[in-house]
């Protein structure tokens, strides 16, 4: 396909795809390379990286293997990012499609709700949800999805608003097509590409939100999360700064990979726009 060829010609997008594949590979090989519990004792605490070949990225203040935590952390980050994104995009599309297609009172009510959610700082809302429902990994993932839907909803709505007045949609009405079918079969496929591209932004933000929550010790303490490790490294920041530094690089690489792929998709799907910016209704990162 032409879009695929355009994507392959874009070096930044290819770099993003390579990085993303690397992160996925890391996540997939984690149980093979580090079959033991990554949160278990692996050796003397606070060994520097490359000092001991058995724990080549060193150990943290509790003597846990940093490499094992980084590898297993990739699983957690990708999983949370993916699931939260699916939740946010699904709600966003549903709300945005209905609001944009019907307009009027329905649109007014739905957009008021969306605005209300955007009025609450999303990280604060996340704190409230975690405070109420606890911080096991499922809750955290669902909570992140729940605070991330307004931006995709606005984007979907904007697409529907322009598409619903297009003549091809009017033509379908004139043919006698019902609303549900017009929404799902005629408009949605045309509205989807920018929303898919925007999903990369949602995913990047979701990964950052989880890491920030974990850093504050408010995420699930029983899983190896990069944010947890950075938080744990704070106590020894003065001397053993590598404990916090290494997982930070892992987050950076992952978020960078997701963003580059998103931007590459955007450029490939909208060849006439040279700018990046799938961020029209952006909520950015809280972390």
């Amino acid at each position, binding site marked *: 396909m032409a879009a695929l060829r355009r994507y392959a010609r874009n070096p930044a997008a290819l770099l993003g795809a390579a990085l993303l594949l690397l992160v996925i590979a890391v996540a997939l090989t984690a149980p093979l390379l580090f079959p033991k519990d990554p949160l278990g004792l692996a050796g003397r605490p606070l060994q520097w990286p490359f000092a001991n070949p058995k724990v080549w990225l060193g150990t943290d203040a509790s003597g846990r293997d940093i490499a094992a935590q980084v590898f297993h952390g990739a699983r957690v980050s990708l999983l949370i990012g993916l699931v939260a994104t699916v939740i946010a995009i699904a709600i966003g599309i549903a709300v945005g499609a209905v609001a944009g297609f019907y307009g009027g009172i329905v649109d007014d009510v739905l957009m*008021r*709700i969306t*605005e*209300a*959610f*955007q*009025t*609450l*700082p*999303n*990280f*604060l*809302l*996340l*704190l*409230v*949800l*975690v*405070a*109420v*429902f*606890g911080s096991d990994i499922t809750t955290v993932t669902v909570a992140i999805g729940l605070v991330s839907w307004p931006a995709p909803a606005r984007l979907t709505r904007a697409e529907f608003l322009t598409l619903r007045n297009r003549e091809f949609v009017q033509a379908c009405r004139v043919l006698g097509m019902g609303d549900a079918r017009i929404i799902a079969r005629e408009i949605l496929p045309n509205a989807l590409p920018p929303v898919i591209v925007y999903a990369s932004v949602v995913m*990047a933000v979701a990964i*950052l939100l989880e*890491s*920030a929550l974990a*850093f*504050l010790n*408010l995420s699930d303490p029983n899983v190896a999360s990069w*944010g947890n490790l*950075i938080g744990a*490294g704070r106590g020894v*920041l*003065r001397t053993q*700064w590598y404990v*916090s*530094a290494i997982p*930070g690089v892992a*987050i*950076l*690489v992952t*978020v*960078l990979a997701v*963003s*580059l792929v998103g*931007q590459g998709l955007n450029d490939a799907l909208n060849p006439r*726009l*040279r*700018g*990046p*910016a799938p*961020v*029209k*209704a*952006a*909520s*950015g*990162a*809280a*972390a």
Partner: protein
Amino acid sequence: MTILLLALRRLAASLPTLFVILAGLFLLLQLAPGDTVDALMAQMGGGDPATADELRRYYGLDLPAAAQLGRYLWRLVQLDLGQSAIYGKPVATVIAERLPVTLLLMGASLTLAFLGGTFLGVLAARRIGQWPDTLISTLGLMFYATPSFWFGLMGIVLFAIHLGWLPAGGFEEVGAGYTGLAHVLDVARHLVLPTLTLALVFLATYLRIMRASMLEVMSLDYVRTARAKGLGETGVIVRHALRNALLPMVTLVGLQAGTMLGGSVVVESVFALPGLGRLAYESVVQRDLNTLLGIVFVSALLVITVNFLVDLIYGRLDPRIAAGR
């Protein structure tokens, strides 16, 4: 005047939803395991159930949820946010003490991110495809992908621990007793790293938006008209493109006000700043739900205020607004 009216109209429209949210959140917090009294008792190192019951009666926690909600909303209308169990003071007082730090941090970060983002975005758009664009866009992406708390920690390692140029945390030198200008400079020194940390991700977003917006505006018909008049490139940018390209940026500031407030929770925790964000974190950890709810309320008010100002600025920038588009 029309602009002010329109902005006021939008302001008025946002209030009912605010109350709906707060009611929702209040009910949500009823689901939370443990209440303020549990937290209080835990802090006192335990106590007998009779004391707990008495405290519950005192705080009105023995009433049914609906009655509590009614009382809560009624108090909100009077701007009474209730008592903070942990701090032993009215929530409003606690928040008022913490608010200035957060406002200062947000104001400084927003200014930095907006001005920096605008400047870099314009620069990148002007040099599209050349090395300044590549450099700026790459840096922007890196900033965007960096978790701010990690950036803050690394800043502390480099600038506070290794170089010793800047303080590692806090709002001011405790016990130094600075006054006047010396105090201002001391606070400013303490805020350099937090401001940079909070601003960076927004700077990255703004520069991307500004670059895209600038590219789009520069391809529009009226820019060609300006060129056909014999205007030079600088004139075209300053007199015609910039103001138009700034419109989406202004909208974005409003949309992201809440996100920025959320970001300050993390940044204030990293740098031990006594602000609203850190208070939110503390109240989650210590289960001071009354305070948490108060913070959410004040944050929402703050976001609404920012959006009100954004509406006014937008209206001034774009004469079409007054005409109702």
